[in-house]
């Protein structure tokens, strides 16, 4: 049965479906629908809801419940996610599974409360200290928010690693029909590594401290091997109209929705436009982008930032074709016409635009 929910509410309900019974949060716009929803829903399923005293406390409560073997989640928006970074580094360093939802808003600093994609670097390049990675999934619709949050719990457990859901104010707050198609999970099996009390077994320690020289390097090598496995197995992307495209747009989340509109309009101006929409931002679909860059005239990365994912696209392309950028910052959202203008601007430079443009008539 389809329900009409905001992206924030869909994320919360999907977590409940996935068996998450420990939620810790702190109010911040534009993710408030999520914490509000959890405060009502968690008691209904005999779960734990705590409105923590701070973002820092919330992520550390997540750490505790993860160490004890529960499925656990927290959510916030950009400034709050910055506060959680120490905790995320500890979670990664202690190999604890959990799900963190970031409904991005404009920055830096207090910024504003409108949609933004300026936390890409923070999300995929580390954020906290140390050589670690979190799996980053970016939904571009309410249904996809529900699907990805559900999968995030499985991925977190599979790899014993935090998973970050990277949305933005638009994805979090827009309402769309959503269906929870997957199994409603309860009473999940106990995790063999979790702290449950040393009953008829040796004790277990959850930690990220390796003071004996050499131990930490061995542990880091283990982490890096795990990350290689994730890069091999967990890349997700959507390709639209890709195979004969002259210009390939690369965009995720809200930006990708707008780019899809550009692709739909493209027949009106006789350019062949395709779209690669990374769904997993880490692991990044580098290989696919590289492959496509060999046949496209150029690529155009569209983001609600000053150009962050752009760097990963360029690293994937390695100069095989020009990679251009169009972005808006500080709560600005690109329109499809702005993107089309940018395409017109970059096309002649690649001598791909042989057709006369009736661009002004594009609606």
């Amino acid at each position, binding site marked *: 049965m389809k329900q009409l929910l905001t992206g924030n509410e869909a994320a919360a309900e999907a977590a409940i479906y996935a068996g998450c019974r420990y939620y810790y949060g702190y109010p911040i716009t534009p993710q408030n629908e999520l914490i509000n929803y959890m405060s009502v829903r968690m008691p209904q399923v005999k779960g734990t809801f705590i409105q923590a005293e701070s973002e*820092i*406390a919330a992520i550390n409560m997540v*750490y505790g*419940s993860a160490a004890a073997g529960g499925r*656990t989640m927290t959510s916030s928006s950009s400034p709050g996610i910055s506060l959680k970074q120490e905790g995320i580094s500890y979670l990664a360093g202690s190999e604890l599974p959990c799900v963190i939802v970031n409904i991005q808003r404009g920055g830096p600093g207090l910024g504003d409360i409108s949609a933004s994609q300026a936390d890409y670097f923070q999300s995929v390049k580390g954020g906290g200290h140390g050589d670690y990675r979190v799996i980053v999934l970016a939904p571009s619709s309410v249904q996809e928010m529900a699907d990805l949050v559900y999968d995030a719990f499985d991925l977190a457990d599979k790899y014993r690693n935090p998973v970050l859901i990277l949305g933005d104010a638009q994805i979090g707050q827009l309402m769309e029909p959503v269906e929870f198609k997957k199994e409603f999970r309860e009473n999940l099996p106990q995790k063999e590594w979790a702290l449950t*009390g040393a009953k008829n077994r040796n004790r277990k320690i*959850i930690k990220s401290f390796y003071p004996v020289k050499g131990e930490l390097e061995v542990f880091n090598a283990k982490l890096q091997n795990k990350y290689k496995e994730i890069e091999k197995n967990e890349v997700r992307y959507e390709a639209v109209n890709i195979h004969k495209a002259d210009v390939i747009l690369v965009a995720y989340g809200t930006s990708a929705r707008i780019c899809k509109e550009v692709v739909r309009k493209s027949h009106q101006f006789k350019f062949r436009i395709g779209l690669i929409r990374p769904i997993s931002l880490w692991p990044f679909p580098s290989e696919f982008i590289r492959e496509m860059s060999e046949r496209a005239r150029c690529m155009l990365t569209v983001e609600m930032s000053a150009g962050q994912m752009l760097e990963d696209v360029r690293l994937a392309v390695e100069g095989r074709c020009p990679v251009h950028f169009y972005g808006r910052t500080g709560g600005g959202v690109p329109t499809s016409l702005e993107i089309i203008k940018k395409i017109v601007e970059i096309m002649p430079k690649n001598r791909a635009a042989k057709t006369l443009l009736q661009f002004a008539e594009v609606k």
Partner: protein
Amino acid sequence: MQAICEKPESFIDTPTHFCPGCGHGIVLRLIAEIIDAWGIRDKTIGLAPVGCSVLAYNYLDIDMCEAAHGRPPAVATGIKRVHPDHFVFAYQGDGDLAAIGMAEIIHAANRGEHITFIFVNNAIYGMTNGQMAPTTLVGQKSATTLSGRNPSNDGYPIRVCELLSVLEGSSYIERVSISSPENIRKTKKAIEKGFKTQKEKRGFSLIEILSPCPIYWRMDAIESMKYIDEKMTRTFPLGIIKDWE
């Protein structure tokens, strides 16, 4: 022959990283004795945060969890909510609990979490070579207060027990010391009361233990025990500050 005194079973037989004359070994041993006597090794989870207390998990043979600096009350909350019938305790120092982790301890107390906090107060940052702690006495010398703690710049030592006792969620709060065999016995009793508090789901319990750090107090072991009795207890008076019984 009958053994009068033995190493507790849940105390791991290994050299510790503690300095000569340090009080941590005594406190950890008391915890191990209680775990043995109560037979609760299989349903106890301990927390070790950052500072000298971090390696507590090398000495206690129970499930243990590390926590980031100051965060044991939050991490312990997350654990206790998953295992509400287990004994959960956090082993924190003064910098961890009363400086960087002050917000977490106040709110854990305020929620009345059924967790026992063992707060080792030696009035110094031992792990980082002896800087001022939030509980450093007025006039006490440290690496960052070379001419003694000066309230006009450094503020005053914080009385954690008194501070937490005014919160409705806190149930059992006692300050003890390990300056003599008699005081050590009292400390053990206080920790047991803390465990009883959570067993009976009476809420938040905290035992502050005045403990020596001879190396960074620049004293010998015997002098530092005297220092606890004669100096520390003036700022931090011993006794039960709050009780549910």
